[in-house]
């Protein structure tokens, strides 16, 4: 449309002097008229100059954008020339943007031409920076410096082209055209030149202004982004607000954010904004795993923005038709961890300039959003932790309010569905005695299910085999996903079962079984379940410890009673055996002893003396000792022969004793008239008979421990027990008393000690032996009962 036809005249000098010359000539010809004319011309000239000056001021002083400035220039030009067909345009690279355009007084839409192929007259003016006046296109066609670009059906005949200069650069063009030839004269050219000069610098200012304005806009936009994104504390409002703001600022019709879920490693759709119509949740996939949408994967992995033409079907309803390409922008934390992907629709052929601005804005939005999402994650984690702690505190309170294990576990199992929201829960308790798991309290499991599990007699091994997957999403949570065998499926009636081992003090005391319809459990729920399992385990163990402690204290009490009873079975003080001085010592390695000694006055003359050692220690030995003592007393009083007595005792013990215990026993009968000791030995350490001259004898005789074989042969011997003789009876606790080097006190040492002390009293001899034993063992604890009896024949 902007055709230029006809010859061209290039005018580059001011015309004013010529006009003045003409006026002067006219003045000479027509003095009066001339004066008048001159005055008129001068006045006109002043008016023109005034118009130009005001136009210039208006243009230079305008602080508008280029579009408004273009219109202003056109309007101001209209004051000095006929500009019914007029254009103001600016260059940008090879592009020529016509910012203001009027044809025959009718304003046209701004438009853009690409001058790279054919610059036309506009291009020539741009190149040469010179004005161009075409008086008549058809006449001057051959002489034009460039070929006009376009010929319309009603082409203009005359035109003015003026470069808009800024320094050495032609930044744009203003042009006036007309249908009549020779419509514009040199004067018009001159006047438009002045406008053009001022317009040039005004445009530079305007462009600078525009840039500043844009920068200011960008800053404002970023502030708005920071404000909006920073204000939202919750995920959904954050995404909604961000989407809306992004669409508004970037100038798109659609925006959504897929948020990365760290725990489950998947993208989640939270919300978005669409100009077309509201995003309907039902039509949007709530979850998008890696591998579902390749563009999303690419952004996730590459962490670079990406434009895709392939729009997923679910997004199409929210986009203009046909669907524009989508721009996916990564949302990252400051440390470049993926937080999500921002998705907008992108105009098919975006302006380079606009695109740049879009990218800048998107980068800002993504940055703020990344931080906000990171903060939310952090806060959520803290809240989750607080929630878990609160939940577990509830469990702890419940646990502490009961002392009975059944009640505690029952409370725990009733809290599980309340705190975690599971369908089924039951606790299996390890029964140490039976070596299998028994069903404890349950929730949501019917009687048949409980019965079924109970009849299975689950062992640890069997339960281990069930664990298909030892899952530890975090270091602290320990649970198993369980294979659903038929029985379990029947018992629980759910597709998924989780097992949390009840571990306390290193032992598996039970299992918390959870049945659920859900495949995926959040870490919060797992944390709570793990904590519950821990508390249940502690409760079970505490209960065991409590019972053990109670049992121990009961046993200790019973033992102390037993000890009292046993002590009453041991002779107190020294028996008045005629002609003899007696000293004795009896000490149990534990609370009760398997050793004993006894003095029996069988007749006026006969005294039975016995020392015995029941194999093993502790309560069974003590009971057996009491039995042996009773049997011996019962048997001995009717018999004067030790061998016969022991044979009978052995028979009775073998008949009565259902235990594996046996006793070694030395029994002698002392007759104070015959001065004789008659003795028999049931496998006991042979006593020492020490003579005043320092020699000694061991009172050995054939026999064996009592209570092992029903028929035993026991030898009986007789020996003189004279004045000054010392009889030492003892159990192996004496000779085997050990020091820390496992050295035993031993028989020779016992004999030596007694020999050295033989002239002293029975008590002194005993004390000497005791002292020597103490010196030998030091602080080494003794594991055997000790019995020592010293009898000295005095007269």
């Amino acid at each position, binding site marked *: 449309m902007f055709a230029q036809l006809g010859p061209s005249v290039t005018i580059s000098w001011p015309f004013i002097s010529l006009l003045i010359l003409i006026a002067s000539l006219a003045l000479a010809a027509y003095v009066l008229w001339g004066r008048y004319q001159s005055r008129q011309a001068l006045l006109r000239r002043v008016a023109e100059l005034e118009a130009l000056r005001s136009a210039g001021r208006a243009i230079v002083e305008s602080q508008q954008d280029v579009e408004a400035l273009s219109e202003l220039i056109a309007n101001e030009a209209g004051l000095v020339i006929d500009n019914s067909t007029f254009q103001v345009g600016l260059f940008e690279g090879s592009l020529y943007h016509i910012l203001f355009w009027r044809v025959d007084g009718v304003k046209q839409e701004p438009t853009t031409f690409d001058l790279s192929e054919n610059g036309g007259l506009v291009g020539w003016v741009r190149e040469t920076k010179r004005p161009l006046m075409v008086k008549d296109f058809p006449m001057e066609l051959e002489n034009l410096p460039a070929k006009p670009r376009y010929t319309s059906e009603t082409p203009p005949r005359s035109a003015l082209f003026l470069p808009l200069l800024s320094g050495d650069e032609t930044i744009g063009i203003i042009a006036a055209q007309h249908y009549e030839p020779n419509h514009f004269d040199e004067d018009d050219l001159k006047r438009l030149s002045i406008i053009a000069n001022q317009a040039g610098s005004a445009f530079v200012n305007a462009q600078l202004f525009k840039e500043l304005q844009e920068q200011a806009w960008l800053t404002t936009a970023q502030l708005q982004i920071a404000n909006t994104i920073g204000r939202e504390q919750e995920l959904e409002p954050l995404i909604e607000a961000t989407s809306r703001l992004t669409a508004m600022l970037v100038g798109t019709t659609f925006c959504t954010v897929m948020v990365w879920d760290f725990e489950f490693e998947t993208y989640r759709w939270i919300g978005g904004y669409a100009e077309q119509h509201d995003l309907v949740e039902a039509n949007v996939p709530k979850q998008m795993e890696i591998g579902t949408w390749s563009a999303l994967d690419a952004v996730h992995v590459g962490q670079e923005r990406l434009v895709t033409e392939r729009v997923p079907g679910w997004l199409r309803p929210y986009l203009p038709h046909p669907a524009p390409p989508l721009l996916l922008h990564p949302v990252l934390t400051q440390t470049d961890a993926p937080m999500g992907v921002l998705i907008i629709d992108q105009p098919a052929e975006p302006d380079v300039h606009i695109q740049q601005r879009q990218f800048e804005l998107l980068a800002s939005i993504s940055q703020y959003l990344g931080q906000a999402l990171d903060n939310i994650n952090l806060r959520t984690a803290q809240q989750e932790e607080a929630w878990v702690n609160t939940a577990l505190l509830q469990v702890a309170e419940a646990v502490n309010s009961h002392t009975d294990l059944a009640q505690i576990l029952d409370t725990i199992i009733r809290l599980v569905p309340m705190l975690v929201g599971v369908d089924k829960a039951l606790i299996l308790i390890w029964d140490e005695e039976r070596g299998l798991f028994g069903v404890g309290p349950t929730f949501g499991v019917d009687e048949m299910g409980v019965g079924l599990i109970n009849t299975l007699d689950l062992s640890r091994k069997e339960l281990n085999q069930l664990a298909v997957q030892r899952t530890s999403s975090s270091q602290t949570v320990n649970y198993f996903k369980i294979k659903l065998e038929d029985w379990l499926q029947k018992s629980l009636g759910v597709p998924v079962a989780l097992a949390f081992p009840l571990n306390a003090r290193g032992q598996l005391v039970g299992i918390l079984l959870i049945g659920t319809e859900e495949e995926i459990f959040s870490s919060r729920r797992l944390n709570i379940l793990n904590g519950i399992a821990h508390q249940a385990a502690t409760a079970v163990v505490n209960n065991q410890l409590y019972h053990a402690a109670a049992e121990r204290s009961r046993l200790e009490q019973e033992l102390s009673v037993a000890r009292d009873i046993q002590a009453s079975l041991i002779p107190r003080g020294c028996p008045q055996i005629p002609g003899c001085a007696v000293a004795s010592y009896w000490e149990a390695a534990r609370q009760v002893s398997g050793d004993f000694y006894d003095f029996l006055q069988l007749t006026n003359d006969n005294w039975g003396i016995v020392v015995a*050692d029941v194999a*093993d220690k502790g309560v069974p030995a003590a009971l057996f000792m009491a039995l042996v003592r009773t049997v011996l007393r019962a048997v001995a009083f009717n018999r004067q022969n030790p061998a016969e007595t022991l044979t009978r005792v052995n028979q009775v013990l073998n008949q009565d004793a259902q235990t*594996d215990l*046996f006793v070694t026993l030395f029994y002698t009968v002392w007759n104070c008239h015959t001065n004789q000791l008659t003795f028999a030995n049931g*496998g006991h*350490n042979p006593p020492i008979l020490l003579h005043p001259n320092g020699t000694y004898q061991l009172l050995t005789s054939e026999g064996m421990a009592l209570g092992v*074989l029903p028929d*035993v042969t026991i030898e009986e011997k007789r020996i003189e027990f004279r004045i000054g003789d010392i009889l030492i009876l003892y159990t192996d606790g004496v000779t085997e008393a050990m020091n820390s080097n496992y050295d035993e006190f031993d028989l020779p040492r016992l004999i030596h000690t007694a020999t050295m002390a033989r002239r002293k009293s029975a008590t002194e001899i005993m004390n000497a032996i005791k002292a020597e034993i103490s010196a030998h063992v030091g602080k080494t604890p003794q*594991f055997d009962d000790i019995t020592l009896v010293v009898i000295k024949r005095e007269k």
Partner: protein
Amino acid sequence: MAIVSTTLENNIQFIAVNGRLDHTQTATLEVELNDALTQTTPHILVDLSQADYINSGGLRTLVTGWRKAKQQGGILILCGLNDRLHDIFSMVGFDKVFTIYSDSETAVQTLTDQAE
């Protein structure tokens, strides 16, 4: 100190006791013996050649094993007692309860003959 248990040919349960057969080891010996006694007719040989001491608890454990083996139609015999152990066994009269061999070969042979 240790108690080592092996099953020889003809299902002979061989238990070797090292060191002191007292409260430090009787529980272990009891476990090993009970294990050996799970056989229907247990043939058990307790090798005491590396044992240097036995107390009444150790004796009791052996007697219990001997008695149970006998009740089940089996046998528990001993071998390799040193002088000290011999004295103890003889003092208590257990040399009359247990069949005692000086070396394990003879003991195993005896058990093998019995087992067959």
